[in-house]
């Protein structure tokens, strides 16, 4: 106990020297607080975005392979295959969507008077069997409701097969209300252009307010989003036979872990996915959004390592000088019978006390200035990334094609010191105190009291 008491008194007795050591430790701790705060916050964001961008799998035809093969026909992924792909241990979530051009049997489309329908289907529709679609039947796409752009104003969402919801505009145009039944027709066809018109008889379970943009580039009933009849995936696909076209089916798979991409790809190939398809995640968007943060993280970690190394060297030197100055005191303590280990322990406690004081001040000040420092550094990283885009001299770092998309780079990190970061800082501080203590212990083991006292006397 007296070791601790004496050490605490020594901290005060040797004020000048300890303030100097304290300044070095404070600088190291403050830098560590800032850099670790930035690093750990960046890590959290990077992990989050990695999961977000890295987990959604896209299956698209590999254009290079198609061009090499010389065929103009892209192999098809059947609905059954898409369902089978979703039954994988690597998948945490999946979403199958379907879309068909339709025309109303007993309803009219909004803007139908303006004429025109689906351009693509219309061209195929030179044959009389094809309908001219003026509306779209969409299966399992309710994202706009989650975003709040669309909202059910009457009734409820479709839950069972052959149920649907329609926009308020479409309902008002046709005097439709919840419970009414509508008939819409879609054209299905084989590769040999054998056309089969299918009538969907759908019960309206709800009417929605539509806050989306009404048109795309052209005013056309088929493209008018008020003409979207929303239903379940099964409602659309149940009537489709394996060899039939006319329904656009989409699938989104979300991996449990982005690192499972290779294994999932192998599994898809084994389940019959044609080699012409490539299985990818959205790496480019990830790089564009997270790139500056990754740069910031690298800068902060590099800076921290440099400060830790330089700081430790300075601290060891300072401690060695301090121990040399206190050689006489150590000699007296040893002559009085204090064991080397206790002398060393006392010096270590002194260092721990100084470190603890610096830790409290360092965490306080570090956490205050971490945010502005992070902002300045991140701004620099974004500017660097931007100039790289403009110069085009870092291919692959930022995808040119993604410019103008909604995935803007992260422009601000909200730095916070969580428990984990605080523990890391305490660990580093303990390490610093121990390094300095070790320097003292190594010196002390070489001291013999008789030599010290004889030198002094």
């Amino acid at each position, binding site marked *: 106990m*007296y070791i601790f008491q*004496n050490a605490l*008194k020594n901290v005060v*007795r*040797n004020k000048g020297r300890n303030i100097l050591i304290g300044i070095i430790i404070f600088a190291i701790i403050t830098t560590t607080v800032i850099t670790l705060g930035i690093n750990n916050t960046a890590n959290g964001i990077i992990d989050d975005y990695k999961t977000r961008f890295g987990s959604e799998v896209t299956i698209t035809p590999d254009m290079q392979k198609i061009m090499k093969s010389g065929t103009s026909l892209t192999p098809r992924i059947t609905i059954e295959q898409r369902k089978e792909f979703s039954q994988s241990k690597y998948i945490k979530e999946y979403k199958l969507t379907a879309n068909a051009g339709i025309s109303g049997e007993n309803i009219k489309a909004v803007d139908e008077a303006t004429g025109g329908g689906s351009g693509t289907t219309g061209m195929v529709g030179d044959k009389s069997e094809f309908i001219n679609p003026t509306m779209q039947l969409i299966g399992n796409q309710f994202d706009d409701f989650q975003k709040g752009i669309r909202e059910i104003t009457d009734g409820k969402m479709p839950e069972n097969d052959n149920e649907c919801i329609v926009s308020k505009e479409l309902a008002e145009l046709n005097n439709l209300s919840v419970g009414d039944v509508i008939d819409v027709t879609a054209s299905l066809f084989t590769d040999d252009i054998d056309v089969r018109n299918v009538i969907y008889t759908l019960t309206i379970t709800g009417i929605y307010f539509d806050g989306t943009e009404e048109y795309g580039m052209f005013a056309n009933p088929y493209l008018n989003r008020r003409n979207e009849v929303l239903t379940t995936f099964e409602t659309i696909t149940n009537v489709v036979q394996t060899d039939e076209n006319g329904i656009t089916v989409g699938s989104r798979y979300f991996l449990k872990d982005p690192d499972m991409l290779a294994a999932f790809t192998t599994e898809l190939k084994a389940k019959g996915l044609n080699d012409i398809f490539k299985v990818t995640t959205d790496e480019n968007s990830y790089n564009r959004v997270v790139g500056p943060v990754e740069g910031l993280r690298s800068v902060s970690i590099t800076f921290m390592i440099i400060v830790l190394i330089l700081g430790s060297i300075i601290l060891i030197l300072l401690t060695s000088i301090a121990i040399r100055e206190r050689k*006489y*005191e150590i*000699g*007296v*303590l*040893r*002559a*009085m*019978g*204090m*064991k080397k280990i206790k002398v060393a322990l006392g010096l270590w406690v002194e260092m721990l006390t100084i470190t603890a004081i610096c830790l409290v001040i360092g965490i306080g000040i570090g956490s205050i200035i971490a945010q502005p420092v992070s902002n300045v550094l991140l701004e620099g990283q974004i500017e660097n990334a931007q100039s790289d885009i403009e110069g085009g001299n870092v291919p692959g770092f930022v995808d040119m094609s993604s410019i103008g998309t909604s995935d803007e780079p992260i422009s601000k990190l909200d730095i916070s010191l969580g428990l984990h970061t605080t523990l890391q800082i305490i660990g580093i501080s303990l390490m610093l105190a121990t390094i300095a203590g070790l320097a003292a212990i190594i010196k002390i083991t070489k001291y*013999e*009291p*008789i030599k010290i*006292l004889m030198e*002094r*006397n």
Partner: protein
Amino acid sequence: MSVLTLNNVSYKYEGTKKNVLAGISAEFEMGKVYAIVGKSGSGKSTLLSLMAGLDVCVNGEIMYNGKDLKKIDRDIYRAKGIGVIFQAFNLITNATAVENIVLSMNISGVNDKNKKSYAYALLEKVGIDCETAERKVLKLSGGEQQRVGIARALSHNPDIVIADEPTGNLDKDTEADVLGILTSLAHDDGKCVIIVTHSRKVTSIADEIWGINDGKMIPVKQQ
């Protein structure tokens, strides 16, 4: 009964050939004051450091209560068995007088709840009042520092008190006081007091006097 025994003790410094001490033998008993005299460089302080357990002899043995100092924990011996009054005081200079005494008691493992009170009493016994006791050692005069050194040597109630020129820095009055304390320690408290000195006054209070010359120790005055 002998508390400290020197058996054929020899010592030489590293890198030298000549023995500073060559086959010294002597016995020191409780309740007596011993004076060791000799010219400068005769090996008096070397002998003191060996008896204080600060160094070990090259040949021979120094026995404390029948145990060879080479074979026992000399840190414990220094902390509990012996009190040393150094010529150069060797106090913790940036601590107060009383802190020096309390620290010595702590190192020795003295189990007294009122160490500070005991330290004040001890300092008062050697002529240091409470106000002076609270001053840092660096701000004390040579005589006061010597008194603090004496108090520290006695703080853990050792069997043996060794003093290296304890009156070398003191005026006549203080010298008399210090010698009185040392004599009282031996004759009243039954300690073994060994004083290395040049002073005739010191030798005059000694029960036995040993002289060192050419590394040999010979009795000058024995009871």
